[in-house]
C-alpha cells in the first residue's frame, strides 16, 4: 500500500436533487503510483470530473462526499469513522456525515495539498484563466502561493515555466492577457501553473478535449516531456481512448459512477475483461475497416438517481444474463499479470455467480444493434 502515491478506496460522492440522490461517484477505487500516468476513462456523465474534484474536496454544493477514503502519501484527504451508508438508505436525503479526525482540515488541505501536492488542470483552457489578469501575473501568483518565492523570483520562475511548456517568446507572452492567446497556448499556461508548483500528482480533467487534434498532439508531447523531467504522476481524465493508449501506463474505466475495469494499457486494449470497455473500443472508428455504421453502444447511460439493479451496465450489455440483474459485481482482480487486472463483470471466474448457467436476457434498448455486436465481439463464449 505504501508504494501508492494516491489511493482511493470506495469513494462516494452524492448530489441531492429534487428527483432524488444522484450517485455521481458510487464506490470508486483506484490508485496512482509515483511518476505514473493513470487514465480515467468513461462516457460523459460517468462521474470522472466529480472524482477529480472529490480528491481535492472541491465538490460544489449541494454535492457531498459521503463515504470512502482518499489517502495521499501518509495523509488522509477523505476519511470517515463509520462505514459508508448503503444504497437504499440514501434514496431521498443525504446523511450528514463528518470526516474522521485523521482527515486533513480544510485549511491544511488548502495550504498543504491543493496546488503544491495535487494540481488540477481543467477542460476549457480559456475559461480557466482570469480574463482581466495577464497570464504571467496569474502564473506568478500561483507560484507565490505554493512555493516560497518572493515576487521577483516568482516572476523569473514564471518565465522559466512558460519556456518549459514550449511557449515561444515566454518573456513577451508574460504580459499577454488570456484572450490574446490561442486555446492551445492557454492550456500550456495552465500546464505551467500546474507543473510550476512541483506537485507530485497532476489531475488533468479532459485537458485536451477542447482542442483540435494537431494542438492536442503538441500538448501531449509537452506533457510527456514534463512527465519525464519532473517525474510527476498524472491522473488523466478523458473519454478519448486514443489519448489513453498514447499517454497512460494504466487505465481505470468508469461507468455510471463506478470503476468497471482497471488494468495496464496493454491488458486493457488487448485483453479486455469488461463488456463495457469492449464496447467502447469497438465504437472507435478504424481507418483499416470500412463499415456501414459504427458500433455504437446501444442505449444511453442510465441516470445515477436510480441505477439499474445488479450490474449497472446490464441493460446495454451484449453479454447480459439473468444473474447480471441480481449480483452487483465489485471491481475485483480477474487476471494476474505485471499489473493486476481488475474487472467488475460476473462472467469471470473470480465471481462465483454461476454466470455460465444463467439464461441470457433480452436487452431492451439493444434490439437492432445487438446482433451486430454479438457477431463482431465474438460473444461471451470467447472468454
Amino acid at each position, binding site marked *: 500500500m505504501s508504494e501508492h502515491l494516491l489511493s482511493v478506496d470506495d469513494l462516494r460522492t452524492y448530489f441531492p436533487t429534487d428527483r432524488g440522490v444522484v450517485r455521481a461517484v458510487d464506490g470508486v477505487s483506484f490508485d496512482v503510483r509515483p511518476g505514473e500516468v493513470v487514465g480515467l476513462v468513461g462516457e460523459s456523465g460517468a462521474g470522472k470530473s466529480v472524482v477529480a474534484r472529490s480528491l481535492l474536496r472541491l465538490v460544489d454544493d449541494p454535492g457531498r462526499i459521503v463515504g470512502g477514503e482518499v489517502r495521499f502519501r501518509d495523509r488522509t484527504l477523505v476519511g470517515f469513522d463509520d462505514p459508508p451508508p448503503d444504497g437504499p438508505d440514501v434514496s431521498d436525503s443525504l446523511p450528514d456525515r463528518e470526516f474522521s479526525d485523521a482527515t486533513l482540515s480544510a485549511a491544511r488541505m488548502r495550504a498543504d495539498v491543493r*496546488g*503544491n501536492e495535487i494540481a488540477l488542470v481543467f477542460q476549457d483552457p480559456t475559461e*480557466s484563466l482570469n480574463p*482581466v489578469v495577464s497570464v504571467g501575473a496569474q502564473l506568478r501568483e500561483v507560484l507565490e*502561493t*505554493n512555493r516560497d518565492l518572493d515576487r521577483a523570483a516568482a516572476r523569473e520562475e514564471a518565465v522559466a515555466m512558460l519556456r518549459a511548456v514550449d511557449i515561444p517568446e515566454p518573456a513577451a507572452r508574460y504580459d499577454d492577457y488570456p484572450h490574446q492567446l490561442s486555446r492551445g497556448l492557454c492550456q500550456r499556461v495552465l500546464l505551467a501553473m500546474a507543473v510550476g*508548483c512541483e506537485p507530485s500528482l497532476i489531475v488533468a480533467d479532459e485537458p485536451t478535449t477542447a482542442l483540435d487534434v*494537431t494542438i492536442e498532439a503538441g500538448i501531449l508531447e509537452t506533457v510527456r516531456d514534463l512527465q519525464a523531467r519532473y517525474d510527476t504522476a498524472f491522473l488523466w481524465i478523458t473519454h478519448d481512448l486514443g489519448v489513453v493508449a498514447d499517454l497512460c501506463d494504466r487505465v481505470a474505466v468508469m461507468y455510471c459512477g463506478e470503476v468497471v475495469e482497471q488494468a495496464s494499457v496493454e491488458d486493457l486494449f488487448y485483453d479486455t475483461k469488461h463488456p463495457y470497455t469492449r464496447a467502447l473500443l469497438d465504437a472507435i472508428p478504424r481507418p483499416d475497416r470500412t463499415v456501414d455504421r459504427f458500433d455504437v453502444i446501444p442505449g444511453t447511460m442510465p441516470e445515477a438517481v436510480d441505477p439499474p439493479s445488479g450490474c449497472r451496465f446490464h441493460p446495454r450489455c451484449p453479454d447480459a444474463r439473468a444473474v447480471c440483474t441480481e449480483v452487483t459485481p465489485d471491481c475485483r482482480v480477474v487476471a494476474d499479470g505485471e499489473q493486476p487486472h481488475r474487472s467488475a463483470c460476473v462472467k469471470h471466474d473470480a465471481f462465483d455467480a454461476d454466470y455460465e448457467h444463467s439464461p441470457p436476457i433480452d436487452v431492451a434498448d439493444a434490439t437492432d444493434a445487438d446482433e451486430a455486436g454479438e457477431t463482431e465481439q465474438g460473444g461471451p463464449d470467447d472468454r
Partner: protein
Amino acid sequence: MAGNPRAERAEAAPGSDSPRVGWRATLATLGRDRSALAGLVVVATVLAVATVAFVDAVVFGFLGEFGFFASLGVEQYWLAKTVWISPTAEVAPELLPPVGLENAFGQGRLAHPLGTDDRGRDVLLRLLYGSRVAVQVALVATLVGAVGGSAVGAVAGYYGGWVDDALMRGVEVLYAIPFLILVLALLAVLQARDSLLVVTATVGVVNVPEFARLIRSRVLAVREATYVEAARAAGRSHLGVVWHHVVPNSLGPVVVQGTVRVGTAILVIAALSFLGFGVSEPTPSWGAMLATARDVMLQNLWFSLWPGLAILVTVVGFTLLGDGLRDTLDPRRSQ
C-alpha cells in the same frame, strides 16, 4: 515539436497585434464616441477647477495654521486673493447683472462677468469655488458607496446562503427608503447639519445598497467561472479568490455605475446644501447659491441661472462619460 506552438501562435495572431486592454485602449475607444468625449471634457474641466479650488480653500487653509507657512503669507483663499479677490469677500454692489446688462442695482461690470450675489460677491468666483464642495463630496461619497457596497455585495454573492440573506436583506431595508429622506433622517439623528464630513459619509452609506446589489449580481455569475474553481484548486483561500479573481472581474459595471452616481451625488449635495445641510456661509456651494438666489429671484434672475447651469452641465457630463464607459467596458460590445 518546436514548430507546433508557433503555429498556434500564428492562429492566435489577430488579437495580439492590437491589444485591447488597459487604460489606453479604453480611452481610445472612448475617443470615438462623441458624447462620451464631451462628457470626458466636462468632467476633466470640472475636476481641474475643483482641484484648484480644493487646494486653495482646504489645503492652504490647513497650512495657514502653521507659523512657517503663515509667515509666507499662506492662508485660506491665498490663490484667489493673490490673483483676484476672495470668493467670500464682499467687494461690489449687490445683485449686479452679468457684464453688458443693466438692472435696478446698476450696470454689469467686466470685473464681475457673471454679476454679483446678494452680498456683492463675485458670482463667477463663487461658482468656480463651489465646484469644490460638489466634487469633493460626490467623489468621496461615491467612493465610500462603491467600496463598501462592493465589499458587501462580493461577500454576499460569493458565500451565498445565510451570509447572503443577512447582508442583502439589511441592504434592501436601506434601499427601500427614498434616498434624500434617508440622508436627511440620518443627518437629523447625527445632529450634524453643518459637518461636510458627516454629510459625505451619510451620502456614501446611502450609496451602498445600489453598489452592493450591482456587484452581487456580477459575482453570482463570476463565482461559477472555471478560473475561480481553478484558483481554489491551486490552493487559494476564499478571500484570496474573492480579492484576486472575483472582484476584478466584477468591477466593470461598478466603474460605470460609479461615474453615473457621481452625477447623482452632485445633485444630492446641491439639494442638501439648498436645504441648508453640509456647508454654511460663507463657504461657496452650488446648492446654497441656488437657495440664496431663490430669495432674490425677482431682483436678479441671472443669479439663479448660473449655479443651476453648473449643476446641469456637470451632472450631464458625468452621465455621458458613464454611458460611454458602459459601452467601452461592456465585454459584449467590445468583442
